[in-house]
């Protein structure tokens, strides 16, 4: 339980005694209460659930996870090719909706 998504804190202010932040989720901005994460600063990423920041995203750990995944196993392209439908790298869509080229999501894979 569950629906918490990561966003960037772009503003911090006080609202009648409660620290509130404006959080940017990839183009959508919404207020979130920062009361539980006093150490959060502008530019930090937080996980927001029902209008509350419940955790700060640890950027280092996030990158580590992706690195581990990227270097995992010694998969050969041909092995990947035998694994089923949807195998071709899909086209990426940029924010204005037009197709672009490149790895999906632009992750450091």
């Amino acid at each position, binding site marked *: 339980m*569950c629906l*918490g998504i990561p966003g960037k804190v772009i503003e911090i202010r006080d609202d009648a005694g409660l620290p509130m932040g404006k959080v940017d989720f990839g183009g959508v901005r919404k207020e979130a209460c920062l009361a539980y*994460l006093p150490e959060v600063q502008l530019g930090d990423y937080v996980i927001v659930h*029902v*209008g509350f920041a*419940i955790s700060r995203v640890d950027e280092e*750990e996030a990158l580590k996870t992706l690195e581990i995944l990227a270097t995992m*196993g010694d998969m050969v392209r041909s092995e990947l090719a035998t694994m089923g439908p949807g195998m071709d790298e899909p086209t990426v869509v940029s924010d204005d909706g037009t197709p672009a080229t490149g790895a999906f999501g632009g992750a450091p*894979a």
Partner: protein
Amino acid sequence: MKYLDEYRDPVLAKKLVAEIHRVTTRPWTLMEVCGGQTHTIVKQGIDEALPSGVRMIHGPGCPVCVTPLEQVDKALAIAARPDVIFTSYGDMLRVPGSSTDLLALKARGADVRIVYSPLDALKIALANPDRQVVFFAVGFETTAPANAMAVAEAARRGIDNFSVLVSHVLVPPAMTALLDSPQNQVQAFLAAGHVCAVMGWTEYEPIAERYRVPIVVTGFEPLDLLEGILMAIRQLEEGRAEVENQYVRAVKREGVPLAQRQIFEVFEVGERKWRGVGEIPASGYRLREPYARFDAERKFDVGEIQTNEHPACIAGAILTGAKLPLDCTAYGTLCTPQKPLGAPMVSSEGTCAAFFSAGRGLGGARSPLPVTPLVQVAPIGRAGVAEAPR
């Protein structure tokens, strides 16, 4: 979107799937407890990509689904009152009570409003001083800090026309109740990532040790789930039973201490009935005495509620993972998301709804999930049926 898109990379996803296949040498049964994880697993077809011996059981991870019928009926009784503005998270609106649901009540003229955050409910209370504003405080531990803050703020600012109908449920007691059941088949758990972000994972260590089950704190994106499943299977294959953290970017062992402190300032642990499952001791929160005046149950004296669960609904068996929706005679026929008989079909996180929306078992030409007979167990909530021998 940063910190989301990267965890949906299809190339990495396929690598993880391949690695899972590589390390799995025996059949295993895993359970994810969180509805959001169920949603991703079913929507992305993750369980179908796993080796055929690995079975994912979808646990009671949807707090909306497990909200006891009594609480839903109380909510309906309160919302029907003309002096009340009843506020709730969106997904509670279609949960069937004994005879109706909040959305239908709204159609009949009750002032029922969806809010995104409990603080919005407080704002409504401030803006409507002559009405009573009640907030349906549902959720797992993830939502408790928000719900607690609403009550704490109401107290601090003297917002006396505000009250909450509490129906919190806790994950660890549910896990141990499952593990204690003689029918239990689960050998490893994926623990709910955001529950643990708040509470940390110290409560799970004694569980892993006592029951010898691996528990992996897991996130919600496809890569998170695949990695969590991989870590759990590795533990099983190696004979380990520890708590591990896959969701390292968001979860620390101690959780968020300030949030925990706020929760326990406002709430205390108490009994909770889980819809379709029954009473699990010490598995819910209730308001502490100093906050009693914000307890909607006391404020509105809703009296003795006679509940009436639909007899065809096997929610209990679904929620404990004992049965799949495909095993339910009402699934897809009498019971659909349009006309749900029970909670797991209402909430889009519920197992039945997740299955239905992915089209499983609905007789399409491509029905991805083979219908395999499960061990016969007594459907919970049905009258007079018993356990067949295993």
